[in-house]
């Protein structure tokens, strides 16, 4: 091992390519979709699907990196998650709401990738490389169960006569729930991954995820939320009434042992996804900071890097602080995904990157609006939109507080019962 900060070529290449996508297909439409909530950006969806299909898997998810066929060739270190983080950051720099509408399975596919058997993976994930784009979504949150996922009340009961799972419950805040479940002519069939208990007396140990295919009877998209930001991304409330799915749609073991290993396995999915969500926030933060610097420059305000602090103006200090925050937060994301690529346990680094990114993203966008004054508040520019888009970074995929709790437990060596 060594300490090195040379951006691998594939990362630089993907950033270069996606920057054009971000400018041409995202930025130019940002305002329109912000003001037309729940309209679907088909151009972007179809473009991304075609582009991802040409370059490989049909989704943004990292591919299984096989060892080089030629044993004489030096083995390249894996960079799948690093590449993904860089892609997400660049797309989010374009428009984070639209990034969330990237087809290919998102968090739903990530759950399958993390917890499914090889047969299940083949069955559920093949569609993402097909002719038409497809979506998948994760249904975790309920009205009474946000960060405390162990409070989930959705139930799955095995009907032994038909060998089907029967699911009942109400889910909210499902990103891309509409596109994953409802049928659209331009989309291939998607699915939702529903978290439910198969044994409420077992608490967390009884929690399982189920793949529910698009169109399954009993599932209803109850409503689409109206949000402060990321408006182009649909956020659905979904009700499930006597929803029947085949036995093999359960991810993980169908029997309950009185341990929490199953649930911990599910939570481990977050170790992989948290730095990626952190990366998406940092894309927004970078957009805001770049815009701020550009406007300051236009107005003749120079940032004099290198001067002692006490000689700097307030604006200069703020901008320099933002640079420090953004750069260091990005390095934390990189380290967390580098650990994931190298199969190192990254629960601490993953949550730290999310804590930092949640803070940095909200602070940078808030400060940028403040410094720009009336221009920052005006809808003439996208800055006010980025301020609204940014806030979700500190909320979804574990709020800043939940992630602080995870970090604290790690550094103190405490269990969930020792530090609640």
């Amino acid at each position, binding site marked *: 091992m*060594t300490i090195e900060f040379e951006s691998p070529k594939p990362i630089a290449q993907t950033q270069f390519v996606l920057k054009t996508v971000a400018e041409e297909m995202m930025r130019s439409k940002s305002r329109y979709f912000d003001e037309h909530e729940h309209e679907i950006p088909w151009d972007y969806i179809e473009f991304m699907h075609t582009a991802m299909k040409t370059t490989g898997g049909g989704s943004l998810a990292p591919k299984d990196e096989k060892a080089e066929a030629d044993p004489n060739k030096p083995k390249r270190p894996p960079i799948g998650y690093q590449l993904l983080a860089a892609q997400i950051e660049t797309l989010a720099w374009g428009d984070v709401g639209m990034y969330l509408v990237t087809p290919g399975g998102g968090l739903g596919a990530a759950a399958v990738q993390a917890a499914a058997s090889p047969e299940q993976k083949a069955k559920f994930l093949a569609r993402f490389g097909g002719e038409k784009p497809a979506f998948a979504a994760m249904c975790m949150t309920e009205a009474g169960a946000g960060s405390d996922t162990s409070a989930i009340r959705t139930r799955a009961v095995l009907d032994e006569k038909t060998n089907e799972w029967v699911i009942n419950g109400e889910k909210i805040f499902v990103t891309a729930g509409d596109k994953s479940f409802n049928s659209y002519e331009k989309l291939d069939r998607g699915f939702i991954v529903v978290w439910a208990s198969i044994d409420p007396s077992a608490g967390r140990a009884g929690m399982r995820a189920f793949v529910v295919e698009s169109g399954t009877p009993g599932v209803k998209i109850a409503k689409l939320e109206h949000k402060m930001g990321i408006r182009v991304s649909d956020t659905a409330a979904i009700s499930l009434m006597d929803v029947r799915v085949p036995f093999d749609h359960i991810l993980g073991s169908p029997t309950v042992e009185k341990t929490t290993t199953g649930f911990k396995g599910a939570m481990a999915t977050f170790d992989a996804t948290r730095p990626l969500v952190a990366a998406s926030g940092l894309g927004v933060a970078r957009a805001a900071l770049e815009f701020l610097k550009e406007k300051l420059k236009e107005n003749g305000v120079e940032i004099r*890097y290198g001067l002692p602090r006490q000689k700097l103006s307030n604006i200069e200090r703020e901008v320099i602080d933002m640079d*420090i925050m953004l750069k260091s937060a990005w390095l934390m994301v990189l380290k967390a995904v580098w650990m994931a690529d190298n199969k190192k346990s990254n629960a601490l*680094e993953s949550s*730290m990157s999310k804590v930092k990114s949640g803070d940095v993203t909200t602070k940078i966008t808030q400060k940028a609006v403040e410094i720009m004054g009336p221009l920052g508040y005006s809808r003439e520019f996208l800055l006010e939109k980025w301020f609204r888009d940014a806030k979700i970074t500190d909320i979804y995929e574990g709020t800043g507080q939940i992630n*602080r*709790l995870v970090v604290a437990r790690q550094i103190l060596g405490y269990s969930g019962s020792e530090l609640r």
Partner: protein
Amino acid sequence: MYSFEPNEEQQMLVDAVGKYASTDLRPAAREAEESRELPKKLVGKGWELGVLQASIPDAYGGFGERSAVTGALAAEELAFGDLAGAFAIGAPNLFALPILLAGSEEQKKEYLPKVIEGEWRPYTAALIEYSFDFDPSDLRTTAKFSNNEYCISGEKAFVPFAKDAEALIVYANLDGRTQGFIVTKNAAGLTINNERENLMGLNALPLYRVKLDNVTVSASDRLGGASGHDFEPVLASMRLASAAAALGVARAAFEYSRDYAKEREAFGVKIAQKQAVAFMLAEMRTEIEAMRLLTWEAAWKLDNAKGDAFSEAYLASVGAADMAMMVTDRAVQILGGHGYIREHPVEMWMRNGRGFAMLTGLAMV
């Protein structure tokens, strides 16, 4: 490629320096601070770890190659033990590294072996000036060139070991550029205050005010020779050392307050089990990590001559100074009243922690 783990050689150095910091420096730190004196043997033992020696190529008497990354790793470890001790052990760096980085071939041959061969000896440098708006790139001390000589005038502050130093580098403003000049201890016009500086922290480190009244040095004593040198790499190295030392002090404060919080009980539980305390610790750990990575990246960029290395070293030093203040302040807060009394080290670390915002120039990597 990105990679975030020290290599084997660096890890060996980190382990050795870390062990010395924990078993030698740390236990002596409070006594040294109160008595305003670091034991010679203690500094000597730290010197023998060979951090500087390993940065100098064998052509000049050393046994390695300078790496800012390795230097930053070592500086963090030393400062984790004790900041004054770290600065004392590294004082010769202030003289040797600018010569290595910016000196002429003659200067390297003349001075580097002298500094690094054998025991620790006081060599130092004078950068800081005693004014609120001190700016290393806009110095008040001036150097003027005439008759193939430089004439230096001004006043320098916080110069480590100035009283005993065999030679020092004095930084001065030469036609708007910061340039270093090698000044030996008996130079005419050089006066060192008898009284040591009295500061909020770092009391174990002997720091002096130095006056230069028309001190004359020959053209060949200008750092880099007749055409001089670029000050940016020297300054970046100072900033990185400061950032890395800030990491060490912060980590010391974090670990100490974390361990305390796991012992101390209130309302029937350990205070670490209270979210108010646990969240502070989580944020301290997160900020340390953030600034460590920024420092490492800046150091790596410096080692690999990347274009933005200097500005990133600046960002790292500014960020790490803030971080050290935040972390050490919270460590005192977590210990409460016990943090404020001098029985525990956290109050000393908080005083030391404040220094990073203004003490660039006391260390180099």
